[in-house]
């Protein structure tokens, strides 16, 4: 399976099953398209010639006929036959090296994958179900997740960390994310839990990586110093331009929050050496020109930027709609072009959704399984209840157990465990399946009523982002 497209002057061919990415000239682009059409016509019959991921039908393609037909075509009648033959020989070499027109054999590994050991390696600790902002789009319902205002006690947090260690098998690297609400509203417990976790690392042969997400309201020099010493990653919530940010992220009394946080975030990012953090924003129907928000943050000196599409009920006035998509595609593309322009200059920055690791990326198993919600990754409420991830907190249908009893509703875990790209019909023929790994289970549930469904707008945006991200690689490598 291949996916070919043209963007910003580059002809790009993805070989989905090998992960190979090729930048090709016009002639090769057209030849590959012709070969693909011919392979599709032949390969309707299932092949029994199973060997690696090489295409079993390639030998049936009449290469001489293709060269002849190109020589006679209007577009290539003036091109030397030897040139066409040379390009086709290069394509043949890639096919023989299993880097083009490869077939999908990973599905054969799914059964073994589904039988994998149950291991938990990451917890999202809802350290505070309370918030000092009242963001309009908050999936946590202004911090409280459809429940009462509540702060996690040290005792509950300690049990959560003990649960993580006890259920992590031989995994050494464990992750704990301090999340909310606003975690800094319960900062003393954050510090106690970090100390506790560090104190049990050696005896258990574990290494904890901590992340804290904050809106910045309570951020002080003292807290910055602590976070720089103890957090592997911090996520700083800011939406971009002041009017965009203030519209969606006001205080409960309606007043603006941008001015209170911006200088602190700029200082904090500098103190972290512009590494291991993200300024993280959300764009909505109200700021479809979100590339300006990304560039606003980049122009303030932030080097690690993530601005992501809102997840909202379709009935909300700020929800993204199908008709917004053409605008959003152009926004992503113009942002990608701007990033190519800035590459290697002082204005260079990372955009989380354009980051793609073509050389040392995840293995097939990771790409099949996605984020690990409900299995490797769980959310813990201030009360100690366990949910598949932060997005499901408050939905009693997804309450899996608690830090005292562990996972008691194993059927919920089993359902999440069965969630992979082959279990979703929309993913099977999608070129993006090994990049997004089937997408976000919560998005699927919210839009399709089933974690095995899909969120169409999210999928379309994801595909655009992948095309742009690869174009950036093509332009800058």
């Amino acid at each position, binding site marked *: 399976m291949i996916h070919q497209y043209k963007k910003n002057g580059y002809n790009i061919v993805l070989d989905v099953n090998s992960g190979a990415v090729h930048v090709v000239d016009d002639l*090769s682009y057209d030849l590959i398209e012709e070969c693909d059409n011919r392979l599709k016509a032949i390969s309707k019959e299932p092949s029994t010639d199973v060997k690696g991921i090489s295409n079993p039908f390639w030998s049936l393609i009449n290469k001489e006929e293709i060269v002849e037909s190109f020589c006679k075509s209007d577009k290539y009648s003036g091109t030397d036959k030897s040139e066409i033959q040379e390009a086709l020989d290069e394509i043949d070499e890639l096919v023989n090296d299993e880097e083009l027109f490869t077939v999908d054999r990973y599905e054969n590994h799914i059964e073994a994958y589904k039988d994998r050991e149950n291991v938990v390696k990451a917890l999202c600790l809802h350290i505070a179900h309370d918030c000092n902002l009242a963001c309009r789009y908050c999936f946590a319902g202004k911090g409280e997740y459809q429940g009462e205002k509540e702060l996690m006690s040290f005792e509950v947090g300690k049990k959560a960390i003990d649960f993580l260690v006890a259920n992590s098998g031989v995994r050494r690297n464990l992750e704990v994310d301090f999340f909310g609400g606003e975690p800094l509203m319960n900062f003393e417990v954050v510090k106690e839990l970090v100390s506790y976790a560090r104190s049990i690392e050696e005896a258990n042969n574990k290494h904890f990586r901590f992340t804290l997400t904050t809106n910045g309201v309570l951020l002080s020099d003292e807290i910055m110093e602590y976070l720089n010493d103890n957090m592997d990653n911090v996520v700083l919530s800011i939406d971009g331009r002041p009017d965009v940010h203030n519209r969606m992220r006001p205080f409960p009394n309606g007043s603006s929050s941008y001015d209170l946080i911006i200088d602190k975030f700029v200082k904090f990012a500098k103190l972290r050496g512009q590494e291991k953090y993200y300024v993280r924003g959300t764009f909505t129907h109200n700021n479809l020109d979100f590339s300006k928000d990304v560039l606003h943050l980049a122009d303030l000196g932030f080097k690690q930027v993530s601005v992501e599409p809102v997840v909202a009920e379709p009935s909300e006035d700020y929800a993204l709609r199908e008709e917004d998509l053409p605008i959003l595609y152009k926004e992503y593309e113009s942002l990608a072009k701007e990033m190519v322009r800035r590459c290697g200059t002082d204005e260079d920055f990372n955009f989380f959704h354009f980051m793609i690791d073509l050389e040392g990326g*995840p*293995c097939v198993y*990771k790409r099949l399984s996605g*984020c690990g919600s409900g299995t490797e990754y769980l959310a813990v409420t201030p009360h100690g209840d366990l949910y598949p991830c932060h997005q499901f907190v408050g939905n009693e249908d997804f309450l899996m157990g608690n830090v005292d009893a562990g996972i008691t509703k194993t059927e919920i875990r089993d359902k999440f465990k069965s969630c992979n790209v082959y279990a979703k019909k929309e993913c099977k023929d999608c070129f993006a399946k090994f990049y997004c790994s089937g*997408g976000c289970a919560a998005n699927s549930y919210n839009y399709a009523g089933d974690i095995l469904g899909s969120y169409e707008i999210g999928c379309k945006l994801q595909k655009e982002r992948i095309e742009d991200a690869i174009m950036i690689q093509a332009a800058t490598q």
Partner: protein
Amino acid sequence: MKHIKTLNTKKLSNTVKKGGCGECQTSCQSACKTSCTVGNQSCENKSK
């Protein structure tokens, strides 16, 4: 090659043999929290 430039040298299919150690970061911990991005993560298994 004259007509084709391949950007990556490692094949996804090779990770079937040595992959699956599970030491990699959980996707949502990095930044997103509302979307699933896996392709941008790095493998932590240096022997792969």
